[in-house]
């Protein structure tokens, strides 16, 4: 199935702004993060630490709602995942 990943600010510069990702049925956030880690490669240090875990300040959303990084819920076809650094509006 397909999910869409939106990345913003510095993370958009690394990952692209809006990417469709193909994941197997039953995939969780971890599946998506693994795909993003591969995609980012050497440029991914702003997002992932050396062990491949998310950096402390990275924020994740699923369909516009904040989710914990260890969230084990299975994703659904068409889900919108967002990944971004701390906000700086105003």
């Amino acid at each position, binding site marked *: 199935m397909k999910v869409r990943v939106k990345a*913003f600010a510095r993370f958009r510069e690394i990952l692209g702004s809006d990417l469709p990702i193909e994941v197997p049925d039953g995939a969780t956030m971890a599946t998506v993060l693994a795909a993003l880690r591969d995609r980012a490669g050497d440029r991914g240090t702003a997002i992932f630490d050396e062990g491949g875990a998310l950096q402390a300040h990275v924020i994740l959303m699923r369909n516009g709602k904040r989710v914990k990084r260890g969230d084990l819920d299975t994703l659904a076809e068409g889900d919108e995942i967002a990944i971004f650094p701390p906000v700086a509006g105003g």
Partner: protein
Amino acid sequence: MISITRDVIDTGTMIEAAKRPGMGALVTFCGVVRDDGVERMELEVYEEVAVRELETIRDEAMRKYPIESVDIVHRVGSLFVGETILLVIVGAGHRKEAFAASEYIIDRLKRTVPIWKKEFGRDGEERWVPGEPGDQTSSPPPG
């Protein structure tokens, strides 16, 4: 009115439009691009989430303070020094509540609305403005 816009913000028109007969005080905050060696800025937004979050902030402010109206317009796109980034207008019967609610709204907005700024210095440097520390997005619990 709550809105995210790419156009110049017309502050005077917005203030007049916010007036209601029961108001004795309108407090307006304009956040503008400051010249810290910066020539322009680019602002980026996660729009659907930002609008919903601004609406949540407005609703919270209206519950928390005895005020009559909240308008918030946040500009995104490319902005030069002196251009208005953020306009917040709070209308109330009396001034104390209007001031308190304005400060509450801005403090909250800076921590939770998904908008980011990149500064372009006159020296050619590009720099993402770091976010303010804090909860980050009001939705569910921190990760």
